[in-house]
């Protein structure tokens, strides 16, 4: 039931909004995963980030996509919690470290062949073109599951469309840069440096119009 609702919600509401109202300009589409398990890593400026990333992959992968999201924010009331868990399919994690292992849910999902969507900045940062410091979650996950590919994605424009605190989304075309997938096994200690290098390189190479 929830799966069907999720499918319909993405097909009828989210995809038309993402592809017609917003419009994506995707570079290197072919680098996106065609099956799980995997970890999609992206910068975070807007609630729309998750929905755009989920619309990039084919609909048949939808049930496998699991955005990792803050429990204190998305489970704060019953309606939002139901929506976040059943329609979006989030894995709630605690930001304050009450749990013994906050990443337990992520390991379970990866072992079941799911694709995690992770925002290592931890929160919606300052839009556009500035990158917050990455938290350690990605590195720990990648180290403990060294074979699983990590797909770095840079999103530009969503912080203009629907920034923190906005009521209505303002239509803009959004740029999506997909980087080459990395595994911890291949990169070893250089893993985090290579991941960050993708973001700094994309920020420099992309000619993004001014927004200040």
């Amino acid at each position: 039931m929830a799966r069907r609702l999720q499918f319909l919600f993405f097909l009828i509401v989210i995809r038309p909004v993402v592809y017609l109202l917003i419009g994506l300009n995707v570079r290197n589409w072919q680098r996106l995963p065609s099956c799980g398990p995997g970890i999609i890593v992206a910068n975070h400026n807007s609630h729309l980030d998750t929905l755009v990333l989920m619309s990039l992959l084919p609909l048949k992968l939808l049930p496998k996509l699991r955005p990792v999201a803050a429990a204190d924010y998305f489970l704060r009331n019953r309606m939002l919690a139901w929506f976040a868990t059943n329609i979006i399919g989030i894995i709630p994690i605690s930001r304050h470290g009450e749990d013994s292992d906050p990443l337990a849910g992520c390991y379970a999902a990866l072992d079941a062949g799911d694709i995690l969507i992770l925002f290592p900045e931890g929160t919606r940062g300052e839009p556009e073109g500035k990158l917050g410091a990455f938290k350690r979650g990605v590195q720990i996950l990648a180290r403990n599951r060294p074979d699983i590919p990590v797909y770095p994605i840079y999103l530009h424009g969503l912080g203009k469309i629907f920034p923190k605190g906005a009521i209505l989304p303002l239509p803009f075309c959004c740029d999506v840069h997909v980087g080459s997938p990395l595994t911890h096994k291949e990169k070893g200690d250089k893993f985090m440096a290579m991941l960050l290098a993708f973001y700094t390189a994309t920020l420099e190479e992309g000619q993004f119009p001014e927004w200040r």
Partner: protein
Amino acid sequence: MDHVPENVLTAISLVFGLLALATILIVLKGAFFRADDHGELVRRLKSWWVIICLFSAAVVLDRTAAIILLCFVSFLAFKEFISLAPTRRVDRPVLFLAYLVIPIQYFWVYQYWYGMFIVFVPVWVFLIISVRIFVTSETSGFLRAAGTLHWGLMLTVFSLSHAAYMLALPKIDNPGAGSVGLLMFLVILTQLNDVAQYIWGRSIGGPKILPKVSPGKTWAGFLGGVATTAVAGYVISPYLTPFDGLHCLAAGAVIAIAGFLGDVTVSALKRDMGVKDSSNLIPGHGGVLDRFDSLTYSAPVFFHYVYFFLYGPMSLTA
């Protein structure tokens, strides 16, 4: 389908026939020769199928459907423009207002209100946008913000909406095609001109016409395109428009020259912004702005050409 004039249906059938022929040729070419640009051609062809199906459906359905489709094209084009152009965060509310201009402009078309249609963006929006921008009391960058927004609205909304107003021309004496015939004529010739200029340019080459703005364009492409489109106009015009003789030939040439200028104007814009294609919505064509760039000029120019000869001092019907 009874309300659709016979010649318009014939024109749609011919366009589909041409498209089918192009599809067969490109598929055959792909099967026998290995060309570098084959993937690109196939993507363009698929986009043509989608565009022509949507456009034909709207034209056959009714006038409202055609206006809504063109309104949506304006929306996509304006969105691409505003994504390329530098904007200020303080102008977020102004941008909402600018988007609101789009449905309102097409509403005047729907209402057959020519007076408002022709002054709304050049006068009212011009005045209001400036006021709305200084109300945010951020004067640094005022001229750039106001100029950018108004230029974008003129190009993507006001100019393109002229194509839709073809459907609202009053008391038009055009048996066999009606006002839809004029819209079909404009769109078919504009797109034909793009293709003709491309083919002439590719097959002859020669000196470049505007090397700084559009390095791919040659004099051969431009002149061959204008000649082809003028002849095509001469042949098609009696079926779709109320014109005959020299007026037909001139109509084709006017659309060809205006289409070329629209194409180059959008190229200049993109060069200024440092990008090649304005978005990836239409595979193989770049974005909507890239596909309809010629129409941004040919629509208003052909519209006023028609308006002058139908209602002007040299009216053909009077």
